[in-house]
């Protein structure tokens, strides 16, 4: 591995981590799309900032551009408040307009701006190592690595300092204001950090892929845990993993690094989405199917418990009233017979003693509606299935 290669991977990793942290809070606060809005609308700020500073890695430029991001948030909130359009439309109107201004500014000043439209979409990670930071004549590394590193340090410091406040205000806005943390300050604080991070990452990965770096790791880890700390750690890991593997895939295909990092993020998400133990698609579909059978069985038993009259317990009647298709009705009845919950005499179904006991426990749960009562039931169900 050559030196620039290591440096590129280092930058990619730092960007991924710096994006993953605010991303977790955006996903939990249902504000994922704000990252999309910010990442697009900082473009005019970035271009104008560049006219002033003539340096893409100047801190002033980053602050100017990040300020555009915050203006976007305020503008969106203001339009929402007028009630002229619905909330999502407000976001959808603001950022394309600002982004268009940015693209046109770049196109009209193509000779003065060292940004081209491709770089806006993809970043220029491959070129990042060429822009060196010189301290008193000594080369100390790529500028963007220092810049992103600084942003990461600030983000982590703020995260450690305000972890408790962020946690409370994310999960319970009412409680947090009752405890005296202003939700508005935390909100705009988070928005500011997100804006700064987006601007910093913009050069490396471009406007749209920074959204992937923010949302995808958080969404992936959210499918695996609901614990905030674990979520943060997992998101960082997913980000780092995708950054490094993404780099090598790009190297192998000779294609965009940023595109390949987000493709890796997508693959990781897809795998977790399908196979996550309890919240993944397969687990959910399987569980729903089981639940349906179990709840159907319960319904069936309760019905028998409810009605002592023979005609209500006749197999034909059941089919008609419970309104199940033949196959479903048969499988539920079979399940109940197999577990000795019912006996069938002359097409008339009755509960066994075991069935009676079970039903009364179930009834207890339904009437009290307390979750702890269902736990036994779930175990029992499990036995039936086996």
């Amino acid at each position, binding site marked *: 591995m050559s030196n620039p290669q290591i440096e590129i991977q280092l930058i990619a990793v730092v960007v991924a981590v710096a994006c993953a942290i605010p991303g977790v809070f955006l996903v939990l606060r249902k504000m994922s799309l704000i990252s999309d809005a910010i990442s697009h609308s900082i473009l005019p700020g970035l271009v104008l900032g560049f006219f002033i500073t003539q340096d893409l890695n100047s801190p002033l430029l980053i602050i100017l551009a990040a300020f555009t991001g915050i203006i976007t948030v305020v503008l969106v909130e203001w339009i929402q408040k007028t009630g002229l359009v619905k909330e999502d439309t407000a976001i959808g109107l603001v950022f394309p307009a600002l982004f268009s201004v940015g693209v046109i500014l770049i196109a009209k000043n193509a000779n003065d701006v060292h940004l081209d439209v491709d770089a806006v979409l993809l970043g220029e990670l491959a070129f990042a190592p060429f822009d060196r930071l010189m301290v008193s004549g000594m080369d100390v590394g790529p500028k963007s690595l220092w810049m992103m590193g600084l942003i990461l340090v600030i983000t982590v410091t703020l995260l450690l300092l305000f972890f408790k406040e962020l946690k409370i205000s994310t999960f319970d806005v009412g409680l947090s204001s009752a405890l005296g943390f202003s939700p508005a300050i935390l909100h705009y604080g988070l928005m500011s950090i997100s804006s700064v991070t987006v601007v910093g990452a913009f050069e490396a990965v471009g406007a749209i892929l920074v959204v992937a770096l923010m949302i995808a790791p958080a969404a992936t880890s959210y499918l695996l845990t609901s614990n905030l700390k674990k979520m943060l750690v997992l998101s960082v890991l997913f980000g780092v993993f995708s950054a490094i593997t993404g780099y090598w895939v790009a190297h192998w295909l000779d294609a965009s690094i940023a595109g390949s990092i987000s493709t890796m993020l997508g693959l990781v998400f897809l795998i977790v989405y399908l196979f996550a133990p309890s919240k993944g698609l397969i687990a959910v579909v399987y569980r729903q199917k089981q*639940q349906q059978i179990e709840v159907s069985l319960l319904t069936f038993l309760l*019905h028998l418990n409810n009605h002592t009259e023979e005609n209500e317990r006749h197999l034909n009647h059941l089919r008609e009233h*419970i309104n199940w298709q033949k196959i479903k009705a048969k499988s539920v009845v079979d399940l109940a017979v197999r577990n000795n919950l019912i006996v069938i005499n002359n097409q008339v179904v009755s509960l066994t003693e075991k069935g009676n006991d079970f039903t009364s426990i179930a009834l207890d749960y339904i009437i009290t509606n307390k979750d702890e009562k269902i736990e036994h039931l779930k175990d029992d169900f499990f036995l039936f299935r086996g």
Partner: protein
Amino acid sequence: MSEKIAIQVDDLTVAYNYKPVLWDIDLVVPEAVLMAIVGPNGAGKSTLIKSILGIIDPIAGSVSIYGKPYKKQRQLVAYVPQKGSVDWDFPTTALDVVMMGTYGTLGWIKRPGKKEKKASLEALEKVGMLSFKNRQISQLSGGQQQRVFLARALVQNASIYFMDEPFQGVDATTEIAIINILKELRKAGKTVVVVHHDLQTVPEYFDWVTFLNVKKIATGPVKDIFNDDNLTKTYGINYKVAVNK
């Protein structure tokens, strides 16, 4: 009250995952009654109506309207949803909303014509909203919006009316106006089922009541079953608090 059965619900069960919402509900509602469904929050009152109307798919159970499955009898049923369920900023007028009540009989593709417009105007007049017919719906007050909803149901010219909390966020005048129309409907032999919150007004407004709390507690004439015993069974021992609220 005649002896004909308007609505018959058998073994209706609805659950989200393991959370039971409605369990094994059997319900028979005779023709030409004005029935309240009462129960605490989360008792499944709205769910009961919605699953009867096929908006929610039940796990088990069947519904028949005048002796035939609901799907074949849709034309006989009108529905007034909760006011919060629609987008009141939608670009449409009061008259337009009422005309929607005619869409069911028109079926696919056919457009409402003169006849439908006339019926809609009559319905608006009945609820006292004729002068607001061209008003954008967001510019109506809560009570006026509810009247428009009622007019939309009236234009369906159904035999059975389901209403989900029609008195929520409504001024006193509208409440009285609505209940008078409902009483008129009953007199004309229609059956009206209302999800209702205010226990105090039950004896005054309704002649039939169903107590619901996940399971059906009781159903029958108000004068026979609207008593402490059933209220306690439905709301727990503190039901008096609920009544006074």
